[in-house]
């Protein structure tokens, strides 16, 4: 018998089918799997079963689209520290820090068990942000700059501690967790489907379509429900529209950060009609209320199709001109090129996902490797860039914007009929495990759920792409000027609340 089980995206399996290993085998299996570049860890979490902790590790294979699940039961009060996965591959650092924080597991060889978030339910209640020892380097020449937690542009809270040699950044420590709302716990506390869907919409306000699609796909799989094509159509369209809107907004923000006013205002103006289209479609600019498990309250009508086509025609023309202007402007290129580089080696080591991974030469895109909804029909080919600098990330956005426009136009040619009498959702299958992946505009979103013998949610695990990618920002700004930090930060545009949950 194999020591893992391979599933596909959005596949539900009985929990008992997941092999339970002892820690040595579990460790050997997963640190062995990650040595292959095609594998990366999409989720690694633990939940209590009586006095034991059940660890589940999900490794996604980007070549054959399998997700390899293995599990292990350990004691939380063990004297001996457990060998750390992170010591073998850095990409596990986040998951192990979280396990350490939530369950007090001690790890041997973990380079830095830095707090993830200062949550109310953490094991060690004495460790607070007030007494957190930030990383320090003692030297007369160096100086520290602390930014935040209140953001200068009043977006989301996070603390950035720079250690600088003059204008040059030697080290950046990022401490988040100010927005911890206990979303994963709320998923268990709130019993109604509507409450849970609303929670999923609130994980990160800029990725409503991404997180909600992941949740409803997971829920439908858990209830053994095959979504009709018109539902899948709406989800795919919402994902691509969201990508289009946020990428355009990000280009505007990049221009703002280099003080290029024309780009800032034109891209900003182009973003607004896209977001407003969500308002026309479902009554909310962020797309809240649009995606529901097993049903849809807002069918995509012929009238909407016409409006969207007109909107795209107007958008495409202006966008094309503005991009042409922007990417040939010497003063803008001087700011973007060779700034904030993440090398391919770094990207693999820290397990980058999504946009950031694609700019460092890694072909990692759920739309192509673990297809869901209508992406199978669209035959998505990810855009891959190789320089890993701010310019690549801006350029990737441009390419993806054009790609998304193409997908939307293609989808609008063939709108599926609304299914008027849908099969109602049944209740979730008991003692099951489901994993759902979706490619939000920022990258790979992963939700996992485990149900108990009555079919109630026993554990819900959310992973936003930001969790992998924040470390990339810290690495990217090293040896850059401190004044280039805002532009590096904006080029990743990571989520604070998606990380803090």
């Amino acid at each position: 018998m194999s020591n893992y089980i391979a599933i596909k995206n959005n596949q539900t399996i009985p929990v008992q089918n997941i092999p339970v290993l002892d820690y040595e085998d579990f460790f050997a299996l997963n640190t062995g799997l990650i040595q292959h570049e095609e594998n990366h860890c999409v989720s690694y979490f633990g939940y209590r079963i009586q006095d034991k902790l059940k660890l589940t590790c999900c490794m996604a294979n980007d070549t054959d689209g399998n997700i390899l699940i293995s599990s292990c039961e350990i004691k939380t009060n063990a004297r001996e520290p457990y060998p750390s996965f992170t010591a073998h591959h850095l990409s596990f650092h986040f998951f192990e820090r979280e396990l350490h924080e939530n369950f007090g597991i001690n790890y041997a060889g973990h380079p830095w068990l830095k707090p993830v978030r200062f949550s109310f339910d953490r094991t060690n209640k004495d460790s607070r942000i007030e007494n957190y020892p930030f990383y320090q380097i003692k030297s007369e020449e160096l100086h520290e700059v602390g930014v935040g937690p209140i953001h200068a542009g009043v977006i989301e809270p996070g603390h950035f501690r720079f250690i600088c040699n003059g204008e040059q950044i030697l080290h950046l420590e990022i401490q988040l967790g100010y927005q911890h709302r206990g979303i994963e716990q709320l998923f268990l506390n709130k019993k109604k489907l509507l409450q849970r869907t609303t929670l999923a919409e609130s994980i990160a306000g800029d990725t409503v379509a991404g997180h909600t699609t992941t949740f409803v796909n997971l829920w439908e799989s858990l209830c053994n429900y095959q979504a009709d094509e018109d539902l899948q159509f709406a989800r795919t369209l919402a994902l691509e529209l969201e990508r289009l809107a946020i990428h355009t907004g990000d280009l505007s923000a990049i221009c703002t950060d280099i003080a290029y006013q024309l780009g800032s205002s034109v891209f900003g103006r182009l973003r607004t009609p896209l977001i407003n289209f969500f308002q026309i479609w479902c009554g909310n600019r962020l797309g809240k209320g649009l995606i529901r498990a097993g049903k849809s309250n807002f069918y995509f009508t012929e009238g909407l199709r016409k409006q969207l086509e007109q909107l795209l025609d107007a958008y495409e023309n202006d966008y094309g001109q503005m991009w042409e202007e922007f990417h040939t402007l010497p003063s803008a290129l001087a700011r973007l090129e060779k700034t904030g580089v993440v090398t391919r080696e770094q990207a693999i080591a820290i397990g980058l996902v999504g946009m950031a991974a694609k700019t460092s030469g890694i072909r990692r895109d759920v739309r192509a490797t673990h297809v869901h909804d209508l992406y199978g029909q669209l035959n998505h080919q990810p855009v891959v860039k190789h320089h890993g600098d701010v310019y690549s990330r801006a350029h990737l956005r441009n390419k993806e914007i054009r790609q998304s426009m193409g997908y939307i136009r293609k989808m609008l040619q063939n709108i599926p009929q609304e299914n008027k009498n849908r099969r109602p959702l049944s209740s979730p299958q008991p003692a099951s495990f489901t994993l759902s992946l979706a490619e939000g505009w920022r990258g790979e979103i992963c939700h996992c759920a485990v149900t108990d013998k009555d079919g109630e949610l026993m554990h819900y695990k959310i992973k936003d792409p930001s969790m992998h990618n924040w470390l990339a920002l810290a690495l990217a700004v090293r040896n850059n000027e401190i004044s280039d930090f805002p532009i590096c930060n904006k080029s990743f545009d990571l989520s604070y609340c998606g990380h803090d949950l």
Partner: protein
Amino acid sequence: MSIVSFLLIIFTSLFFTGIVIRTKSIFSGRKGPGFFQPLKDIRRLFRKGAVYSKTTSFIFQIAPSIYFASVLMAIFMVPFGNQPGIISFQGDFIFFAYALALGKFFIIISALDTGSSFEGMGASREALYSLLVEPAFFILMGSFALLTGHTSFYEIFGSLHFGSYISYGEGTLAAIVLVFIALIENSRMPVDDPKTHLELTMVHEVMILDNSGFDLGLILYSTNLKFAMYGALIANFFLTPGYEWYYSLPIFIGVQIVFAVIVGTVESFMARFRMNHNPQYIFMLTSISLLIFIGVLILKKFV
């Protein structure tokens, strides 16, 4: 009549920033605020009390007033065509530069006084850029002193004769250098971005983060005054002495407006420089000034 230039500079300072902001608004497709909005903001600040951090000393409290006074002092020395400034003496352009430097010095140490790491960075950047601008200004004014044989603003501008092609070239180059110096000294693009909200990229703005109320109003108004002052200096290259006021006045106002529109246009259509490119850029001004100097040597020797 020597008060004319002072009054004119005060007058232009009232709408200068308004024109810059309106230009930027129009280029970005917005209607934009009224011409006097910056002034209204300053008036609002003047009516507020200031808040002082406990870590600051008296330096922080007196610095804005000294800064404002130093700019006023410098304005006293700017002539208007054939009218001297309120103060005019041999070598007044040196006094002009160091009066401004005194004000800047106090703003820099008041920024350090707050003990904030941001303001320290801003102070270091501002000090570096002012230091680099200085040679450009002195070589420029020194060249004209050599050319005309005079050492005060009034006499230099009063006896500038544009006779040969070289001297026309000199005048143009000098105007360009002064425009750039004004942009740098006023912390505008492409060296600094007055609109940014990011402390890490600011130069001048970050130094005044802790100032509030009346003090902030003084500093902001000083910036307007400085702009109008440099505008007046540039205008002086175009005010040929002996012209009647009804020629000089429109030229003066016209130059100020064109200057403001240029600033607005530059800020609309280019990105700002990377911080470590700024010193190279500022050094360029010194080399242009050296060109002017060589031109003057040629003029003195051969013409």
